[in-house]
């Protein structure tokens, strides 16, 4: 009767291949390898990109010096949109594979996305004042960026106000998914809305083609934003993992080892 008994349950199931990255312990170590190189990369790329943008790139014929805010504005705006998509990606992975680390990564990304979104809006307002004559214009891009900000805030508020961690993770994932499905709808509706109401008073797309140095500078800052995002979200991911796995043996061992190192 006992012949076909399944093997005794192990403490954690052994995962093979790429699935083993679902283990928090392994992820913790892996995340640690990213932090230093990405931080350095972010600093170097930011300095290089901003130097190129602020000192080397030619002055814009129409807008003068003020256009240089583009080197911060556009990379942050790109990044804020990318991060939401990446969050939605991890939400799907988490919902399908039921992997906790995916949710942790999703939550680790959200504050960075919100910060980039805020920076994009802020720099956009500062740029709008001298060029359009007002801090805020109800233009399609600005408005959808603002709504993206609200989506981020909603996500963060929801995941923080649910105390049960499992529910917070899944609820956040559902929200991220619903939000991601809505982003194109929001974008196009806002676009049609702004053409309906004000015609093409503000046209960003008709800007003259960019000089190569400008483009290079912008891409450098964009890459810096990627490196920064990876570094910061990995730090945050490690904190989340430690917090949630604080009762597991490997975290105990890790903390003990650290304590010994400090006392030694």
């Amino acid at each position, binding site marked *: 009767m006992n012949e076909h008994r399944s093997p005794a349950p192990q403490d954690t199931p052994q995962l093979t291949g790429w699935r083993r990255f679902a283990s928090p312990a392994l992820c913790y170590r892996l995340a640690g390898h990213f932090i230093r190189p990405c931080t350095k990369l972010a600093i170097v790329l930011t300095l290089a990109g901003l130097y190129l943008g602020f000192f080397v790139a030619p002055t814009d014929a129409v807008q003068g010096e003020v256009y240089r805010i583009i080197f911060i504005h556009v990379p942050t705006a790109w990044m804020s949109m990318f991060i939401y998509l990446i969050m939605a990606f991890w939400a799907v992975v988490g919902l399908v594979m039921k992997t906790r680390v995916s949710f942790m990564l999703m939550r680790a990304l959200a504050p960075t996305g919100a910060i980039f979104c805020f920076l994009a809006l802020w720099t956009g307002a500062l740029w709008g004042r001298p060029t359009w004559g007002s801090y805020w214009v109800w233009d399609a891009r600005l408005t959808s960026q603002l*709504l993206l900000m*609200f*989506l981020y*805030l*909603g996500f963060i*508020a*929801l995941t923080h*106000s*649910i105390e*049960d961690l*499992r*529910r917070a993770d*899944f*609820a956040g994932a*559902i*929200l991220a*998914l*619903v*939000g991601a*499905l*809505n982003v194109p*709808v*929001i974008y196009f*509706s*806002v676009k*049609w*809305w702004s053409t*309906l109401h004000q015609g093409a008073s503000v046209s960003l797309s008709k800007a003259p083609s960019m000089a190569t140095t400008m483009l290079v500078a912008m891409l450098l800052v964009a890459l810096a934003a990627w490196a920064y995002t990876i570094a910061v979200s990995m730090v945050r991911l490690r904190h989340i993992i430690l917090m949630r796995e604080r009762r597991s043996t490997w975290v105990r061992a890790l903390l003990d080892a650290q304590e010994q190192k400090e006392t030694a």
Partner: protein
Amino acid sequence: MFAALLRRDLLLAWRSRADVLVSLTFFIIVACLFPFGVGSDKELLIRIGPGVLWVAALLSVLLSLNRLFAQDYADGTLEQWLLSDTPAPLWVAAKILAHWISTGLPLVLISPLLAVLYELPAEWLPTLAVSLLLGTPILALLGAVGAALTLGVRAGGVLIALLVLPLFVPVLIFGAGAVQAVADGTGATPWLLLLGAGDLAALSLAPLACAAALRLAVESG
């Protein structure tokens, strides 16, 4: 099951008519507040009328959302439904439909009356009513997802507004756009078709997300 639940929820709504009247009254009061704020200039009221009525309807739907599942969650009925063998999205859809009939439909019916307060031209009224008829179900469906996600969460009432208002924006744009299009003489059909498409998309996806969120709430509560 679908019909039984629909009948039950409608009966419950009818028995507690006061709750239903609150959200309807809220709609009327918000719509009546605007002239006090912006002045009673006739041309201005005509211009902002469709948008104001749409925003008021949207807020009224938002206000009624946290009632959608709260009662059944509190007394354990929700858990029993989840345990039953009826597919969850099906009865969730029935609940949302009942909720819409008791809170959304009255808004649609009373909207021509409020439009008269704003002295909107008579030929705009059908478009306004139809746009609300097509738009409020989307609001109810999307809002139900928010209501399910925030079920039993502290500060749920404020949270739900933060979650669903960004998602409501396209509906508001299409709905108010339809009336505006009639005003501009460009024809409301494309906007109404977009609203119809939104209905179908929300109807096919929202009950699924809503059911998943409800299961989550019940399992962890």
